[in-house]
């Protein structure tokens, strides 16, 4: 059967840690700090809106671009929260999570050989999506700059073939984010080279130390930015799969063309629930954010106590510590920690091959579980991860 598979797909690197994931999934009573989604259930009034819509018989397709009501609500929300204005008719598209938004963007803009900048470490699908669309991912190494893109490491990565950048902040897997001043410096370089800036700001609502600044709100950036966001993280709606793309109408039109043939539209139930989220869910977002903040302190203090070096996260719900101290690679650390202490974390190599000595810890778990996991990690380290 193998020769039936497309070359492009055949050549895609299978994730090296799929086997590790299977190991976790096959084990019982594991405390998992390896989950990339909130531990909260979607707030009830949002779920109820979905249920009611089904009872009322809303079971059809919607407009390809998404329910007008949802686009209009988003328009109003972005305008009032950030002073960001997008036309609901021409500059917005409702997508199946941010994932579809990234995929559509890649397919809409890439010509064979075009290069796309991707900060590393970063979310796992940017590279493969770029390649599937015929582009070449160019990873920006942020190892020496506290996991941050800087004007210097950015400038170094740009050449004539560079078409754009996928810029995610707050970042999965490091939790770092950018203040306005830092964004302004990055913007200058990107605008100078006339690159398309695709921002994935799905964790924007979960920014803890300062206000999140959407990239298109920076002066002069909007015309060159495709702003991707969604309901998954802030509203704890991962399984509903609702995201949105906002940007220049030509790009949205190109993306809509692909979307109408491949996806048609996002599930109407989910879109109606998303309307309710915008209408009444902000308070829940704030409450969940408060709880994440408290957990962040617990985890960061714990890691410091264990002597595991890490950059303090400013958003999302991840920390990306080094486990060098244990004498183990991130992969072996994760495997042994799972086998010996039944605590699951994700090996750092999942997010960039040069992060062998890192693991990703997600603090989207209950306070009690986090406390217990830190205790178990302490026992694990004392027992001599270091002789391993």
């Amino acid at each position, binding site marked *: 059967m193998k020769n039936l598979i497309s070359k492009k797909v055949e050549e895609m690197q299978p994730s090296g840690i799929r086997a590790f*994931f299977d190991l*976790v*999934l096959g084990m019982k009573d*594991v405390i*998992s700090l*390896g*989950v*990339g*989604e909130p*531990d909260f*259930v979607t707030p009830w009034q949002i779920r109820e809106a979905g249920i009611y819509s089904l009872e009322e018989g809303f079971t059809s397709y919607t407009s390809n671009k998404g329910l007008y009501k949802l686009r209009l609500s988003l328009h109003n929300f972005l305008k009032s929260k950030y002073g960001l204005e997008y036309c609901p008719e021409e500059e917005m598209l409702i997508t199946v999570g941010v994932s579809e938004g990234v995929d559509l963007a890649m397919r809409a803009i890439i010509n064979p050989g075009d290069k796309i900048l991707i900060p590393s470490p970063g*979310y*796992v*699908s940017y590279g493969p999506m770029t390649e599937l669309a015929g582009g070449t991912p160019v990873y920006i190494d942020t190892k020496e700059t506290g996991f941050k893109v800087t004007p210097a490491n950015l400038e170094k990565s740009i050449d004539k073939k560079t078409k754009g950048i996928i810029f995610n902040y707050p970042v*999965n897997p490091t939790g770092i984010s950018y203040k306005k001043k830092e964004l302004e410096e990055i913007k200058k370089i990107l605008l100078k080279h006339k690159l398309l800036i695709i921002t994935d700001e799905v964790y924007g609502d979960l920014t*803890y*130390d300062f206000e999140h600044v959407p990239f298109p709100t920076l002066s002069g950036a909007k015309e060159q930015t495709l702003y991707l966001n969604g309901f998954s993280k802030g509203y704890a709606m991962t399984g509903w799969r609702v995201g949105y793309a906002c940007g220049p109408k030509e790009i949205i039109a190109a993306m809509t063309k692909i979307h109408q043939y491949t996806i048609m539209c996002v599930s109407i139930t989910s879109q109606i629930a998303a309307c309710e989220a915008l209408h009444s869910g902000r308070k829940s977002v704030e409450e969940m954010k*408060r*709880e994440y*903040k*408290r957990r*962040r*302190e617990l985890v960061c203090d714990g890691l410091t106590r264990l002597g595991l070096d890490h950059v303090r996260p400013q958003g999302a719900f991840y920390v990306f510590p080094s486990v060098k101290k244990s004498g183990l690679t991130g992969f072996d650390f994760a495997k042994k920690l799972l086998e010996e202490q039944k605590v*699951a974390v*994700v090996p750092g190599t*999942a997010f960039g091959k040069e992060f062998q000595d890192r693991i990703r810890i997600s603090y989207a778990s209950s306070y009690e579980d986090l406390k217990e996991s830190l205790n178990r990690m302490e026992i694990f380290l004392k027992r001599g991860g270091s002789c391993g």
Partner: protein
Amino acid sequence: MDEILEILEKDGRMSIEDIAKMLRKKPADVKKAISKYEKDGIILKYKAVINRELIKENETEVRALIEVNLTPQKDLGFDKIAERIYSFPEVSSCYLVSGTYDLLLIVRGKDLHTVARFVAEKLSPMDHVKGVVTHFLLKKYKEDGVVLKQKEENKRIAISY
């Protein structure tokens, strides 16, 4: 409402340090604010929410919601008579409400008989009490924002990007 109050209303045992972390404030400032709330009587007390249905011992409790119709008193309205009623230790809550009756009480007793006796011997004969309707409580689903059900299992897959 101040976020400190919001947090404490949900979890009265949240530590000052944790509240400070959640709100990015100094622990000393949080402590000061809480002390002031306590002093001003805004925070009255801290208590546990107990799910009595899970208590294994024989010691049970019966609760009743009681509607009370009153004749208001000149110059005093309902306040004086309400005070006479809520001062009984059996009365755990007492509200003046609009509608077809005046006071809504939540009365606790160790069994049906005790509550019935309270109604018959103390409450009903009282001056200005025109009538009472007693509803015995059968099952509690939710109280003060807390759902009285065992925590549901986690439905997330154990590991994901």
